[in-house]
């Protein structure tokens, strides 16, 4: 692993296009600013891992398909009796 020392306000550059700035250091909490092109995604590691695990559990196996399919059909009866969903989103952020 590459280890670099940086002072407050200083940056590192990764692959010519990703800039990481040390914004704040308070006790054992470091705030980082990341500037990167849109196609680069940046996540907190623990959240990233949680999503990957959840996605893997969600992937359906063809073996259990019938049970799952029957349950979905049974639960699906609900939707004929409920009101349509309103929008989930606000685009103002």
């Amino acid at each position: 692993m590459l280890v670099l020392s940086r002072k407050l306000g200083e940056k590192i550059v990764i692959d010519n296009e990703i800039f990481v700035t040390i914004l704040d250091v308070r006790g054992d909490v470091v705030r980082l600013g990341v500037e990167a092109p849109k196609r680069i995604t940046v996540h907190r590691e623990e959240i990233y891992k949680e999503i990957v695990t959840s996605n893997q559990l969600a992937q359906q196996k063809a073996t259990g398909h019938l049970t799952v399919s029957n349950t979905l059909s049974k639960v699906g009866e609900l939707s004929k009796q409920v009101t349509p969903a309103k929008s989930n989103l606000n685009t103002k952020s």
Partner: protein
Amino acid sequence: MTTSPQLRQIQTERFGAVSVDEASIITFVQPILGFDSLKEFALFDHDDASPFKWLQSLEDPSLAFVVTNPTLFGHDYEFNLPQEACSVLNVQRAEDVQVLTLVTVPEESPLHMTANFLGPIIFHNDTRHAMQLILEDSEIYGTKVRLIPDEAIAADGSIHLEVIQSKQKRVNS
């Protein structure tokens, strides 16, 4: 002028050989995490008017996810679409996109199905470009939110509709 749809023949393990309209194919511009190599998916209704859909990989015939919109189960599921996501998917208005959550259905107790609220799939209705969004800054959403609460499941495994309907009314009021 109307053009006839361009159909693509795909192979799936569950649904056999299916023709899908090219224009309906969903392309992930940012991946479903952990499935980074899979870009193209088709969305099938489970059956008419079902709250569930199947997100079927076009690159892996065996891979499919069950997806739904949790508001159909009376969940108050709302978030701000971050600026970066708007620009990645070229979203102008909230109506441009659809929101779906991945559903995990445990084989031994399928009614205890959960939805991943933390990492919703969003896609643009017109371009069909999609991404898995991670709601980094929201504290309230988990990856294992029960869609059907215990109190809505009867001892014999049937579902008390009225429990879900009353949740629905609360959310929509």
